[in-house]
């Protein structure tokens, strides 16, 4: 995937953003430190109010940290106004200028920098080609669809050749199919241009699809940073386990029954196998088995989701593909009320904080 750690595009150094005081003190961002590398697609993921958007805005310059420093390519930018930073933003509501045409919108940054007309026109053309909006330069934003406006916002930002592009939940207003299509295109553009993308979203699937690395935010702090696989397979905390994908959490006595200790453990639903209670796989150190009763089954086309109440307490969600009865390696199909055995590999089970 990416080469060994290259130069740092953005660095947060114990950055905090506090609002209010005393009892009304809100720590939107709480002593956060991390690096974003050149050329990577970096996503800040988390629920609303977790601080991810505030961090983005501080990089852009629309907000200032209450303490700590932000570096852009090695320079301390905490005091720099937005118009002096070499970053550009794609806004959630696109923020297109209604009284200008698409072409004028896209070329706005160049016009401000007094780029010569000929070069400006050429670059506007190229930018529109990049986002596949050729020929629409004379239209007004009000005449465009949501998806088209989003592309104009992207072109308007990219035309300035920023070293870092910030995207604030840009796909929120699009419908599912369009969103998935644009996700692929965005990733392709990023790869092609080699620009650092800093992306903010609350949609974990979106994050998993596009990112090189993800930072999971919760209440102003980062719970974990890493590539998508790492976050999914080796979540560090219960929050990350729950926010990315479906998590199964067992704690206390229920955990004791399967792992031997009362620490909270987590295991992904697709890592658990269901079998008839009579077929208990070999009890060796590599595998863990336990018993339970199916409480609910939801059919989801590609797979079925079982909720199983364990005999020793707790509940586990299990996902099995619907391979069908004639398949080469079938597994049994269960109904609510059936007794089942659950088995999984020890290395798929993790302790979380």
């Amino acid at each position: 995937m990416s080469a060994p750690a290259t130069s740092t595009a953005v660095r947060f150094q114990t950055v905090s953003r506090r609002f209010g005081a005393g009892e009304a003190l809100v720590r939107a961002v709480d002593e956060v430190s991390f690096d974003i590398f050149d050329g990577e697609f970096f996503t800040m993921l988390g629920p609303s109010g977790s601080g991810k958007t505030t961090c983005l805005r501080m990089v852009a310059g629309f907000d200032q940290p209450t303490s700590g420093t932000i570096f852009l390519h090695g320079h301390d930018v905490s005091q720099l106004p937005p118009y002096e930073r070499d970053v550009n933003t794609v806004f959630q509501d696109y923020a297109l200028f209604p009284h200008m045409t698409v072409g004028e919108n896209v070329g706005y940054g160049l016009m401000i920098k007094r780029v010569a007309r000929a070069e400006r026109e050429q670059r506007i053309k190229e930018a529109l080609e990049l986002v596949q909006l050729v020929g629409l330069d004379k239209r007004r934003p009000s005449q465009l669809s949501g998806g088209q406006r989003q592309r104009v916002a992207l072109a308007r930002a990219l035309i300035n050749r920023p070293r870092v592009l910030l995207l604030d939940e840009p796909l929120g207003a699009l419908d599912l199919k369009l969103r998935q299509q644009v996700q692929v295109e965005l990733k392709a553009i990023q790869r092609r241009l080699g620009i650092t993308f800093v992306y903010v979203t609350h949609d974990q699937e979106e994050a998993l699809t596009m990112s090189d690395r993800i930072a999971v935010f919760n209440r102003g702090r980062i719970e974990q940073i890493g590539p998508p696989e790492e976050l999914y397979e080796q979540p560090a905390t219960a929050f990350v386990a729950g926010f990315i994908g479906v998590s199964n959490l067992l704690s206390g006595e229920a955990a004791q029954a399967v792992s031997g200790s009362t620490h909270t453990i987590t295991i992904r639903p697709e890592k658990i196998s269901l079998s008839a209670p009579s077929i208990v796989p070999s009890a060796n150190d590599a595998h863990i088995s336990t018993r339970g009763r199916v409480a609910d089954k939801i059919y989801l086309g590609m797979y079925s989701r079982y909720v199983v109440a364990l005999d020793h307490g707790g509940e586990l969600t299990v996902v099995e593909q619907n391979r069908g009865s004639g398949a080469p390696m079938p597994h049994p199909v269960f109904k609510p009320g059936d007794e089942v055995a659950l088995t999984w590999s020890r290395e798929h089970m993790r302790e979380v904080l």
Partner: protein
Amino acid sequence: MSKSLPILRAAAGMTLAFLFLPLVIILLYAFNTEEAAFTFPPPGLTLQWFGVALQRQDFWNAFGLSLRVAAIATAAALVLGTLAAAAVYRFNFFGKETISFLLLLPIALPGIVSGIALRASLGLADIPFSFWTIVIGHATFCVVTVYNNVLARFRRLSRSQIEASMDLGANGIQTFRYIILPELATALLAGGMLAFALSFDEIIVTTFTAGQEQTLPIWMFSQLTRPRQRPVTNVVAFLVILLTALPILWAHRLTQKSNES
């Protein structure tokens, strides 16, 4: 709502007729042949009085003065009103609500209050009455029309557009010039025209601050005591209706259009 519709319509219609009757009468009388020009029905119609009126030097002087006063007062109102609206929109400061109240006072309190207050103060400072004293008085009550219009428009500006402009490299002044000002344009125009009409038509405050000068309303007031000049006054009245009505209609159109977009 099932209030008896016909009664409602009739009542509404009567109020409307009441509103328009005098204007129609004036229109009619401007063409009246008779000199005394009081009687109804008017004996005949003519355009002759238009000719007479337009040759009256004192009319033209008054008209010119009113125009100049209104122009300058409007310009001052545009600047002051926009500045105030920008301050109130952008900042939260101590006494913010009082600003709106303060700007409203000149039209909420009776005109004689402004008038005599100004007159007493000018007398105290021994400043003679002149063109500028009239303008100063007018500007106090013209500011609020611009302020209200511009503030309402500011509130409909989207924050992210301003941020986007700065993000793309424009500083505050450039953002104001390229992004904010175009969006304010129609509000400025509408507010400015309302201010112009207010100033052009004003008589109460003007009476106190004018000294020897005569604006058009003051001139008309003085004419009302001279019956023989009545036909001329009729014509002037007719022209004034046209002159103030048209900009108002236009201003209204402008605010409607931008409300829709």
